[in-house]
């Protein structure tokens, strides 16, 4: 930004050219990012007849919320799925999986919130210790945490599955909450540690001189100042848990523990489900994380860059 200030005010036509290039580039970028999502949303509000038209109707002629209505009514028990044997194209068809979407959303919420809480409980004290206390083995601790980020999640699936099965925890939300810590906690510690590191050491020293224990320094001095980092870390843990697919695919078997991605994935390979219903299920999975990301954009961007620079 400051670079432009140094620049001598350029002539008119290069400024116009620059404006035109920027405008075109912005439009291209917006189209690249938004067009697929727009098509997803547009498809979700089309009728069965309209969605199979060639060429596709980019903007539906007769938009309808029937898919979302079906999802919410069956999910809350006010409507029943259409019995088998009825022609899906007859209109008002409700696939049998429709009722599973809302409970799965509930499961996703429970798992994600639990993972967020555990991440903060585990990550905040550890990050403070790594950032502000010089102890023997500090570098080792950093390398260990860094190394865990390199392990592919698919390499953890085999041992996790066997342990979870042995403990009788297959098909439970608990197994998801615990195993999701493996994919979230190291990153949370990195983001928080890099945030704590930016805070002045004097703050730490002054409180220690005043007779605070380390825990008191953390709780009374650092925690109140760390709110942006806590928000960012909470969001990352929430989004990672909400979006996680691989582990949930292995550990969940029934609607009792299946999270939203699992139900949605099941719908994509279900040939009785209409294309528009499929897209409505996709929209349902997309709305919460996208809303969070757009609302908390600043926190996320600063957290991502902090975590990446360290990690």
């Amino acid at each position, binding site marked *: 930004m400051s*670079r432009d200030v*140094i*620049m001598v005010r350029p002539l008119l036509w290069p400024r116009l050219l620059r*404006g035109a290039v920027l405008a075109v*580039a*912005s439009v291209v970028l917006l189209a690249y*990012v938004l067009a*697929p*999502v727009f*098509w*997803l949303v547009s498809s979700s509000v089309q009728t069965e007849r309209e969605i199979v038209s*060639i*060429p*596709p109707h980019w903007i539906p002629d007769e938009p309808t919320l029937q898919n979302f209505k079906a999802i919410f009514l069956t999910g809350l028990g006010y409507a029943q799925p259409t019995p088998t044997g009825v022609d899906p194209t007859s209109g008002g068809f409700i696939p049998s999986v429709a009722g599973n979407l809302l409970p799965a959303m509930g499961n996703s919420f429970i798992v994600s919130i639990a993972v967020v809480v*555990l991440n903060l409980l585990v990550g905040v*004290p*550890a990050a403070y*210790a*790594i950032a502000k*206390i*010089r*102890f023997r083995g500090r570098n080792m601790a950093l390398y260990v945490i860094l*190394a865990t980020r*390199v*392990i*592919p999640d*698919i*390499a*953890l*699936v*085999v*041992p*996790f599955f066997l*342990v979870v099965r042995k403990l009788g925890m297959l098909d439970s939300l608990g197994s998801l909450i*615990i195993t999701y810590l*493996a994919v979230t*906690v190291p990153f949370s510690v990195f983001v928080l540690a890099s945030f704590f590191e930016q805070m002045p050491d004097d703050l730490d020293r002054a409180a220690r001189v005043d007779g605070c224990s*380390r*825990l008191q320094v*953390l709780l009374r001095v650092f925690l109140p100042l760390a709110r942006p980092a806590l928000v960012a870390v909470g969001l990352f843990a929430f989004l990672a848990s*909400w*979006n996680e*697919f*691989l582990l949930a695919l292995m550990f969940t078997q029934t609607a009792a523990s299946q999270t939203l*991605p699992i139900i*949605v*994935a099941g719908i*994509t390979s279900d040939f009785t489900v209409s*294309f528009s219903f*499929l*897209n409505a299920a996709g929209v349902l*999975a997309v709305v919460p*994380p*996208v809303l969070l*990301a*757009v609302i908390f*954009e600043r926190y996320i961007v600063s957290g*991502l*860059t902090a975590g*990446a620079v360290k990690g």
Partner: protein
Amino acid sequence: MAPHSGEARLRGVTYDERAAAGLLAALAVVLMAVTAFPILYSLWISFYGLNLRRPNRVPFVGLDNYAHVLANPQFWDSVGRTAYFSAITVVAVLVLATLIAVLLDQDFPGRRILSACLLIPWAIPSVANGLMWKWIYDSNYGALNGLLMQVGFISSATIWLGDSAKTLPLIANAFIWKEVPLAAILLLVTLKAIPADLYSAARVDGATAFKRFCHVTLPAMRPGFLLVALYEAMMAVRHFDLFFLLTEGGPGGASDVVAWRIYVETFRNLSFGTGAAMSYILAIATLLMSYGLIRSLAQKL
């Protein structure tokens, strides 16, 4: 730098060290339970002939699982596909993210809206991403065919994911769409960190904007490029979700990558021993790859 370290050496464990141990205890327990233990356990499994079809006979087979995996030509085919998929991804993400970062580095009205929208692909669950692109690629009613036919690029509906030559690039495209935003954000940070002096010096020397970009901006962004390349390579090598959702390794094995192969070996063939060996090979390969990239990053700095 470390006011307590001298004291620590003299008197054994200091208060600070005890405090640090207490604050790190929960993390240590969690990392032991969900990373260290599984990694060691899967090493152990990889030495046994564990197959859940015959759960009562689990013979010790030593390195046979590894030998079996490494001697299988199909495994090497899938390694090749993973390498191809990762190479497309890393190159495309680097190019697109650089262009986006350069755009977002400019000051213009609407820049903030643009960067907020950029987070949308990043936030979308990979399952929804898979569903979305599967529908776009649909050979009957998909948007890709619809669009290309409307603009007259193709005259009749084309098969996309079902064509083995196109499968991997198409899956990579869906993956790239989701990965580019994070990469652009990271590159934007490196871009903003370039000292303005470098640009004014180049300008005084009479360098054109294009020359300044090639000789000042690009070299200064090297650490960012390596960070992004490292991260994206790691993500691409392990990626599973889109392969499951879009093609299930098909058509005819055209998208049978290593991650998919591990899944099939373990959860469809129920051969946990060879599955563990394969995932160990993948983990070690990832580790070596990151080590190599970090080494080259450290050298270039």
